[in-house]
């Protein structure tokens, strides 16, 4: 079954798996077993859903974009993850993982973060559950996302700068994994996307599938029982896209993931192993991992979740790219046409839709776009970019 349970090996076709050193094997197995049992437990589900609605603000609305639709010639509906607590879809995942960590008796969370959104969400969940929280963040991203660093600290988390490698998300994941090797007895690694060793790609997709389930029903209500023709989401590791696609996988909707042009693992990568998974990976001819390059820290990742590599190989989803320039245009466009300032990550999805409306996407189509987050965190950076500062 596509987008089902990947089984004990965590395989999506040839992708996925669990490529971790032996010291982490037991922790991954314990996590898989705990998640299986929690996910099958009604009480756990009930607790999770209660926190998601009473604390995190779910369900998030589906917004029809009247002016933007008229401008580009396709009917655009936005799934408003930007309105969730902490400003992005990342909260869905961390609440689930923190609840699971509590159930497993772990008192400390470690997380990696790129844009800082997952770090902020993890710090938030740690505060809510009374857990200690350490967030690894690349030095370069710390400079790009100063405000989120302060937010995490306000929430009581410790932000540890990562100085190795490209000093971005990829290296923050390495550092979080290194922490986890020596602390896994007391610590849960709260991974932020559908990547890493099994069970993470599956578990995070399950925790994010609420985006797809809600929006499918909301679309059907709005579209008199019909599904949208296109479903589009931005892809860094791919969690908001996976959660969205999960709701539409058995519909006839065309599924599109939009990667940053400088971090396009599907378009420009080849199969490889990094961070515990087999997936598509940007790498040089000898197998060294290349650094991704994007204005959006959250999409600055040389890999992609293994299930996306599988969906791409099946042709069930397609993966496109958007470049920095058109993303900035889309960022402004959504702000000025709809009064919504999107996260730079989410603006990639908007950029692709506005570029391809009337081309890949026939005029008159209905397009559901997951707006994974709000742009408050990006305003300072965009101000510098637009004013040439």
């Amino acid at each position, binding site marked *: 079954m596509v987008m089902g*349970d990947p*089984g*004990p*090996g965590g395989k999506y076709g040839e992708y996925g*798996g*669990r*490529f*971790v*050193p*032996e*010291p982490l*094997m*037991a*922790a991954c*197995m314990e996590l898989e077993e705990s998640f*299986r049992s929690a*996910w*099958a*437990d*009604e009480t756990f*589900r*009930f607790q999770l859903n209660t926190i998601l609605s009473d604390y995190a603000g779910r369900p998030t609305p589906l917004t029809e974009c009247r002016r933007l639709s008229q401008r580009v010639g396709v009917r655009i509906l936005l799934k408003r993850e930007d309105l969730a607590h902490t400003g992005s879809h990342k909260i869905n995942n961390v609440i689930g993982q923190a609840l699971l960590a509590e159930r497993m008796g772990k008192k400390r969370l470690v997380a990696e973060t790129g844009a800082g959104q997952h770090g902020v969400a993890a710090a938030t969940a740690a505060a809510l559950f009374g857990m200690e929280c350490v967030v690894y963040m690349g030095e370069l991203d710390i400079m790009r996302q100063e405000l989120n660093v302060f937010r995490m600290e306000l929430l009581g988390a410790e932000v540890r700068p990562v100085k*190795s*490698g490209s000093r971005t998300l*990829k*290296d923050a994941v*390495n550092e979080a*994994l*290194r922490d986890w*090797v*020596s602390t*896994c*007895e007391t610590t849960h690694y709260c991974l932020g996307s559908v990547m890493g060793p099994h069970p993470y790609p599956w578990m995070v997709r399950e925790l994010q599938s609420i985006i797809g389930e809600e929006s499918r029903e909301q679309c059907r209500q709005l579209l008199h029982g019909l599904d949208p023709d296109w479903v589009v989401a931005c892809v860094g590791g791919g969690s908001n896209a996976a959660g969205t696609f999960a709701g539409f996988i058995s519909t006839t909707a065309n599924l599109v993931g939009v990667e940053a042009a400088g971090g396009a693992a599907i378009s420009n990568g*080849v*199969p*490889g*192993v*990094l*961070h*515990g998974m087999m997936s598509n*990976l940007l*790498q040089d*001819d*000898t*197998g*060294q*991992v290349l650094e991704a390059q994007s204005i959006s820290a959250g999409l600055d990742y040389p890999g992609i979740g293994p299930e996306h590599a599988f969906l791409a190989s099946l042709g069930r989803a397609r993966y496109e790219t958007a470049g920095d320039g058109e993303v900035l245009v889309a960022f402004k466009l959504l702000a000025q046409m709809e009064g919504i300032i999107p996260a730079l990550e989410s603006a990639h999805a908007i950029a692709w839709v506005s570029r391809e409306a009337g081309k890949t996407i026939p005029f008159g189509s209905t397009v559901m776009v997951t707006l994974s987050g709000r742009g408050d965190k990006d305003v300072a950076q965009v101000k510098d970019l637009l004013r040439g500062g």
Partner: protein
Amino acid sequence: MVADISASFPARPSPADQIVARSAHDPGTIETRLRFWRDEGRKSLCCYLMGGMSRDWLDILQAISHGGANIIEVGIPFSDPMIDGPVIQAASRMALDAGATPATVLDEISRVEAGVPLVVMTYYNLLLKGGLSRMAKHMSRASISGSIIPDLPPEESAPWIREADGSGIENVMLVAPTTPVDRARRICESTRGFVYCVGTMGVTGERDSLSRTAREVAAKVMSVTDKPALVGIGVSTPAQAAGACSIADGVIVGSAIVRRVMEGAGASGVEKFVRSLRDAIDS
């Protein structure tokens, strides 16, 4: 809520059952040598060096051999060394900046006579990208006897083992303090050369004292196999090496050597340090 969600999660064989079991095999060079040393009542010393980390790394390799190492582990640098601490990370960076690739490291090794068996330690992506069959053959041409691929657990290792076996490369597997004993038994059946006992839960690097887990993991391994058991990760001083050898068949020392190379100890300084390790485990 669905009444019985558990029905959709049928019991499955645990992934550990998928580990390829190999009962009988011809021991290769490494295992034969290590068994010989053990039969002589001596402990084995395996030292690590990052390939290509300095101009004189081949001289240092030979110095390690002269200092009394029984096996030398040669790192092939990777951009994302997940199980390595700051020292070996820095050495990887230096080697990569100096232009080291799997091919250059292997080609350079084949120009020297190390005098002891060599084991390559690297990450799986480099083998995948180079092609498993090609990499195994290249290692064999460079007179490499074994491989340690820390991010390649037994569940995923069948394709590499097939090629490694075919080229006479003994693939060494890891057992950790957290490895359950049943799983440890299966790993010990599949490993070749020796069992790499991960002495401490953590990344490679020097520690102030030998972890309590070092002896525990060695004892666990030795209760399920008679293959040679070497303790590595967190063994950094002669005293710690001797401590680990009170149970295990030998030790693996990495960061303590690499750090000395980075500090400019040169071939003679490294040889002296290796000799101090040798003396400690022999006394």
